[in-house]
């Protein structure tokens, strides 16, 4: 049981480090939002659930934190993406398609 918890926590920590590395390396605000949200939500969920599996008396509160992060992290990232699109942060020059431009033209 403890070995399973250590393996799950290790997967979570790996995804957290990769998400933070993506924040440093990717070229654009929207790419950084994608790396930062997906990797850190997955990593935080698995780290906290792994700790909860190792300590079974902490499991329910760990599950509460994990579900809370899983619910609120996409909302805050969506709010930041929408705000940066509204105040005109440009895409990087290697971007291929921008579908939000024609959507704004239809409005």
């Amino acid at each position, binding site marked *: 049981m*403890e070995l399973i918890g*250590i393996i799950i*926590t*290790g997967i*979570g*920590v790996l995804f*957290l*480090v990769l*998400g*933070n*590395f993506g*924040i*440093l390396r990717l070229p654009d*605000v929207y790419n*950084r*939002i994608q790396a*930062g*949200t997906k990797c*850190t*939500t997955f*990593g*935080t969920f698995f*780290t*906290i659930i792994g*700790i909860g599996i*190792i*300590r079974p008396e*902490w499991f329910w*509160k*760990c599950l*509460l*934190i994990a579900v*809370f*992060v899983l619910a*609120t*992290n996409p*909302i*805050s*990232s969506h*709010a*930041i993406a*929408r*705000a*940066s699109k*509204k*105040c005109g*942060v440009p895409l990087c020059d290697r971007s291929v398609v921008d579908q939000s431009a024609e959507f704004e033209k239809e409005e």
Partner: protein
Amino acid sequence: MNEMIFIVFTGLVVGGILLSLIRMLIGPTASDRAVAVDTITTTTVALLVLLAFIFKRYVYIDVSLVYALLAFVGLCAIARYMERGF
């Protein structure tokens, strides 16, 4: 042995937070800095749970829950400020 593994995990997470901190310092626009702060707060929630396991303090899990709540409210406030500006 198990404590050694979790200390190594904590060191890796702190290294990741330092990478995001570099982006927060050099980020060209305000949105970059807001995204870096979002990532740092979500990583800190996991870091607090790891520290609760290492130091065997149950209270740190409550601290982590309150920190997640306040980070969500603060980031929504930052996004609303960048969108409308009041």
